[in-house]
C-alpha cells in the first residue's frame, strides 16, 4: 500500500503554518499532516462529472477523499479519467454547496430549516395544490433520468403525467428520430472502423475517455477521421481533415452525400433492398440536392462532398457517420431532419449491425424490487402538450418540453415545480423568462450547490448528498461507444455526507410521510439494488467489491431477423424507415428534406451564436468548481471565438473586449481572434455566465449563449433550437 513520504507531505503541511479548526476532512493542509500513517481505501464508484457515469476508484485516506483514477474494466473509462472527473471528485469539499435545507424568506434571502419542517411545509402545500388544481398542475423536472424511478412514484401518487427532462436542450432530435426510423439507437464501432465522419460531434470535448482512446486506436491502425464542424474542435486536432461548414447547414451536407451515394450507385443496394423502406420517397424528395447545390448552402466545396462520399463508400461497411450527441440535435429548425439524414447516410452505407459500422448497445435485463404501487389515478393530458393531440403531438412525452414550464406557470397551469439535479435558469433559454418559475405556488429544488435555479426561483432547497456520499441503483454500462459484452456497475457511497444532506430516496421518503405515501417508498436503495442484480446471478457484495462486472456478449452482428426470416426492427415495417409515418400523420414530411435555418446572419456585424462543450467543463454544471475554473482562467477559456478575417473587418484584436447583443441581452466578453472558426459565427463555451451570488466561483464569469437565446420550441421534437440566434458584435463596452 502506498505511503506518503515524510519529506514531501509533512513539509508541505508544515510550511503553510496556520491550520484552522475545521474537521480534518475539510482542511487540505491538516489532511496532509495526518496523511503519513493512514492507510488508503480504494472504493469503486461512478463519476458524476458529466452524464456518462465512468467507472472510477476513489482513494480515501483518514475519511477524506484524496483522488480518483479510472476503473480499469469499465467500458467508458478503462483506467482513465478526464479533467472533469478529477475535478468533480474534489468538489465534495467545495465551500459553496448547500449544506442544509433552506427556505426562501426574501428576494435574495434564505433561512436554514430542519428537514422535518421542510417536509411538513412542502407536503402541505403540495397536497393543497393537488386538491385545488389537480395532479396535472404539478411538474417534475430533472436532467434525467436518475431521479425518474422515485419521481414516478410521487407523480403516480398525486396523478401527474408531467415528468420532464433536459433533453430539449441537448439531443432530443436524435432520441425522437432513431426509435422511429431504426427502432433502437445504434452507436459507432470506433475501434474497428476504417472511416469515421464526425459532424458537429466533438468526441474530445464531450468526453468518454475510452471512446477517444478507441478513435486513436483506429487511427493507429490506419483508419481515416474527418471532422466537419464550424469550429476546429478538439477532436479535429486528431483528424486527417477538418472541414469547416456554415453552421445550421449540416442537413444540406448530408443530403448531398446521399445524392452522391445514390447517383454514383455507391450505396449498399443489397442492404437498402432488404432492410430499408421509403427509399423512393426519400429520393423523390431529394434528387435535386446535388453537391453543387449544397456547396452554396454549406460553403463545403462540391468536390469535397463527392470525395467524402466516395471514400466512405469504398470503406463501407466499416465506415460511419457518427450518430451524434448534443451538437446538432437541439440546435436548429432543421435538427430533426438532420438526425433523420444521419440515419439515411448510415443505412446507405449498409453499416448497421456490422463490426466497424454501427452496433446496438449491450445490455442486460435487470430485476425490479417487488413493492406496492400507488392506486391508479386518472391523469389528464400533459401540461406541456408533449405527445398529446395538438402542436406537440410528435414530441416524446417521456422527455417533455422544459422550456415551456415558465410560460405554463405564468398562465396558471403549473402550480408546483420540483427540480432535481437540473438548472434550467442557466442551461435553458432566456434566464429572465425562466425566472417566471418562481411565481408558482410551490418551487422545490433538489441540488448539490447553489445553482441559479435554486437561488433565483426555489421556495425550498433540499440539498442532495454529493455523488460520493450516496448509493444509487446499478446501471447497464453503455451508450455512445460500443462493446459486445454488457457491463453492470453502480454508484457506491464512498464517504459519509460532509453536510446535512440526504439522498434523493431519503428526501422522497421524508416527503412521502407527510402526504400519506410512505408505503410506496418503504424500501432501501440496497434492497432495490439486490433485486436488480438478482437475475444476473450475482450479489451486490460481488458488485461492491468489483465496482463493475462484465458478462458474456449479448450483441449479435447482423440485421435483426424474425423466425420467419423477415427484418424485425421495432419499426412498423421491421425495416429502417426513411419515411416516418407519425411525422406524416401530423402534417410534417415523412422523409428528411431541406429546411433552411430559421435565422441567418446578414449584416457585416451579425453572427450566428454557436456554443460547445469545453473539454474540462460539463456545460454549466462544473462552473463553480475551483479546479476546473482555474483551467479556464489559465487558458482564457471564457473568451468568445471569432474568425480572424471578420475580426479584422470589425477592427477587433485578440483579447479585445466586445459587446455581444441580441434582442434579449447585451453582454461584454473578451475575444479570441482565431483561424479555427467559420467566419459566419461566434463560438462561446457553454460553461460560463453564472449568476447565482452564492456560487462564488462561477458568479459573474463569462457569458452564456442562453443569455441571448429566445424561448423557442422546434415543432417535431420540441428542442430549444439553441443556435437559432443572431447576435451583433461591436468593439468596446459602451
Amino acid at each position, binding site marked *: 500500500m502506498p505511503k506518503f513520504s515524510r519529506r514531501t507531505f509533512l513539509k508541505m503541511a508544515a510550511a503553510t503554518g496556520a491550520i484552522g479548526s475545521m474537521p480534518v476532512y475539510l482542511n487540505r493542509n491538516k489532511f496532509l499532516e495526518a496523511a503519513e500513517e493512514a492507510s488508503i481505501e480504494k472504493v469503486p464508484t461512478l463519476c458524476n462529472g458529466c452524464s456518462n457515469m465512468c467507472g472510477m476508484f476513489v482513494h480515501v485516506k483518514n475519511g477524506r477523499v484524496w*483522488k480518483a*483514477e479510472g476503473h480499469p474494466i469499465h467500458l467508458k473509462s478503462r483506467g482513465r479519467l478526464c479533467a472533469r472527473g478529477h475535478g468533480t471528485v474534489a468538489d465534495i469539499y467545495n465551500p459553496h454547496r448547500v449544506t442544509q435545507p433552506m427556505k426562501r424568506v426574501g428576494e435574495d434571502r434564505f433561512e436554514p430549516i430542519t428537514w422535518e419542517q421542510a417536509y411538513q411545509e412542502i407536503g402541505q402545500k403540495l397536497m393543497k395544490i393537488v386538491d385545488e388544481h389537480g395532479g396535472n398542475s404539478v411538474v417534475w423536472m430533472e436532467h434525467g433520468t436518475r431521479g425518474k424511478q422515485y419521481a414516478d412514484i410521487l407523480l403516480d401518487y398525486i396523478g401527474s403525467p408531467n415528468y420532464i427532462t433536459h433533453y430539449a436542450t441537448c439531443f432530443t432530435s436524435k432520441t425522437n428520430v432513431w426509435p422511429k426510423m431504426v427502432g433502437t439507437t445504434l452507436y459507432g464501432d470506433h475501434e474497428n472502423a476504417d472511416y469515421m465522419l464526425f459532424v458537429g460531434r466533438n468526441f474530445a470535448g464531450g468526453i468518454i475517455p475510452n471512446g477517444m482512446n478507441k478513435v486513436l486506436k483506429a487511427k493507429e491502425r490506419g483508419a481515416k477521421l474527418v471532422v466537419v464542424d464550424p469550429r476546429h474542435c478538439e477532436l479535429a486536432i486528431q483528424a486527417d481533415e477538418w472541414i469547416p461548414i456554415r453552421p445550421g447547414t449540416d442537413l444540406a451536407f448530408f443530403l448531398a452525400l446521399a445524392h452522391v451515394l445514390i447517383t454514383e450507385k455507391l450505396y449498399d443496394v443489397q442492404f437498402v433492398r432488404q432492410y430499408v423502406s421509403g427509399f423512393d420517397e426519400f429520393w423523390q424528395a431529394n434528387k435535386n440536392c446535388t453537391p453543387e447545390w449544397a456547396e452554396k448552402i454549406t460553403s463545403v466545396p462540391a468536390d469535397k462532398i463527392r470525395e467524402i462520399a466516395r471514400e466512405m463508400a469504398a470503406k463501407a461497411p466499416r465506415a460511419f457517420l457518427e450518430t451524434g450527441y448534443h451538437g446538432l440535435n437541439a440546435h436548429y429548425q432543421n435538427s430533426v431532419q438532420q438526425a433523420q439524414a444521419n440515419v439515411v447516410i448510415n443505412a446507405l452505407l449498409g453499416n448497421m449491425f456490422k463490426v466497424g459500422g454501427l452496433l446496438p448497445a449491450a445490455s442486460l435485463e435487470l430485476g425490479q424490487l417487488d413493492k406496492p404501487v400507488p392506486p391508479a389515478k386518472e391523469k389528464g393530458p400533459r401540461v406541456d402538450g408533449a405527445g398529446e393531440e395538438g402542436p406537440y403531438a410528435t414530441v416524446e412525452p417521456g422527455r417533455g418540453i422544459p422550456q415551456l414550464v415558465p410560460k405554463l406557470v405564468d398562465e396558471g397551469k403549473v402550480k408546483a415545480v420540483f427540480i432535481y439535479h437540473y438548472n434550467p435558469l442557466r442551461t435553458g433559454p432566456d434566464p429572465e423568462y425562466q425566472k417566471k418559475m418562481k411565481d408558482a405556488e410551490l418551487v422545490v429544488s433538489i441540488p448539490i450547490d447553489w445553482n441559479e435555479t435554486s437561488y433565483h426561483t426555489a421556495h425550498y432547497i433540499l440539498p442532495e448528498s454529493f455523488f460520493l456520499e450516496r448509493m444509487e441503483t446499478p446501471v447497464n454500462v453503455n451508450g455512445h461507444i460500443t462493446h459486445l459484452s454488457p457491463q453492470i456497475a453502480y454508484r457506491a457511497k464512498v464517504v459519509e455526507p460532509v453536510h446535512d444532506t440526504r439522498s434523493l430516496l431519503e428526501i422522497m421518503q421524508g416527503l412521502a410521510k407527510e402526504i400519506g405515501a410512505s408505503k410506496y417508498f418503504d424500501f432501501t436503495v440496497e434492497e432495490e439494488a439486490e433485486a436488480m442484480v438478482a437475475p444476473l446471478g450475482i450479489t451486490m457484495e460481488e458488485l461492491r467489491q468489483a465496482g463493475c462486472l462484465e458478462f458474456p456478449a449479448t450483441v449479435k452482428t447482423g440485421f435483426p431477423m424474425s423466425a420467419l426470416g423477415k427484418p424485425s426492427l421495432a419499426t412498423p415495417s421491421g425495416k429502417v424507415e426513411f419515411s416516418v409515418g407519425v411525422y406524416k400523420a401530423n402534417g410534417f414530411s415523412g422523409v428528411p428534406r431541406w429546411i433552411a435555418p430559421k435565422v441567418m446572419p446578414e449584416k457585416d456585424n451579425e453572427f450566428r451564436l454557436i456554443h460547445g462543450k469545453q473539454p474540462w467543463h460539463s456545460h454549466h454544471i462544473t462552473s463553480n468548481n475551483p479546479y476546473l475554473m482555474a483551467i479556464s482562467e489559465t487558458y482564457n477559456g471564457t473568451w468568445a471565438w471569432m474568425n480572424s478575417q471578420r475580426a479584422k473587418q470589425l477592427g477587433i484584436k485578440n483579447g479585445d473586449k466586445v459587446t455581444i447583443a441580441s434582442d434579449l441581452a447585451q453582454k461584454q466578453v473578451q475575444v479570441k481572434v482565431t483561424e479555427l472558426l467559420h467566419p459566419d459565427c461566434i463560438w462561446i463555451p457553454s460553461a460560463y455566465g453564472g449568476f447565482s451570488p452564492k456560487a462564488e466561483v462561477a458568479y459573474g464569469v463569462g457569458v452564456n449563449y442562453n443569455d441571448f437565446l429566445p424561448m423557442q420550441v422546434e415543432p417535431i421534437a420540441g428542442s430549444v433550437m439553441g443556435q437559432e440566434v443572431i447576435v451583433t458584435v461591436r468593439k468596446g463596452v459602451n
Partner: protein
Amino acid sequence: MAKYGMLIDAGRCTGCGACRIACQMQWQLPPEIAYNRLEHREKGTYPKVKWEITPVQCQHCDNPPCLHVCPTGATYKRSDGIVLIDHKKCIGCKYCMVACPYGARTLDHEKMVPEKCRFCADYVVQGQQPPCVSTCMNEVRVFGDLEDPNSKINKLLATGSVYQLLPERGTQPRIYYVKR
C-alpha cells in the same frame, strides 16, 4: 539504478487538462498551482489551419540550470535522474524560476517555494505511473526507465523520431517529444 525519463507524443494531445488536475489531486495542490501546462499554437490560416498543443513540465534535465543557480542546495538531483526541491533548504529567492528556460517552475504562494513537477518521485519507485501518464485518454505520455532496454519508453525511443525542447541551451532534458 533506474534512470527515469518521459516521452511526450504531443500530437496526440487534445487539451482536456486531465494531466493537470490529476497531478493536482495526487499532490493535493490548490487550484491555481499546476505542475504541467499546455502550450497552444495555431499554424496556417483558415481553413487550412492546424491547432497544435504541447504539454510542458519540468524536463528533469541532466544539466539543470535551476540546480546550478540554487544558492542553498535546495534543488538537487537524485541518482535516478529526478530533480527535486528540499523545502527545508529553500529560501524562496526564485533564482531557479528565472534560470529555467522552460518556465517549469511555479511559485507556491502559500509555501513561498518555487514548485514544479516531481516526476512523482515517491510513487514511481514503487512501480506506479505518474497520474499525468495513467489518466490520459490519448496516451500522450510514456514514463519509464531509460536504462532498461526492455522498457516501453526505450522501445519507442528506438523506433520513433524524437526531439527535445531547447537543446541549444545544453540542459540535456530527460523528456523527449515525438516529432509531429
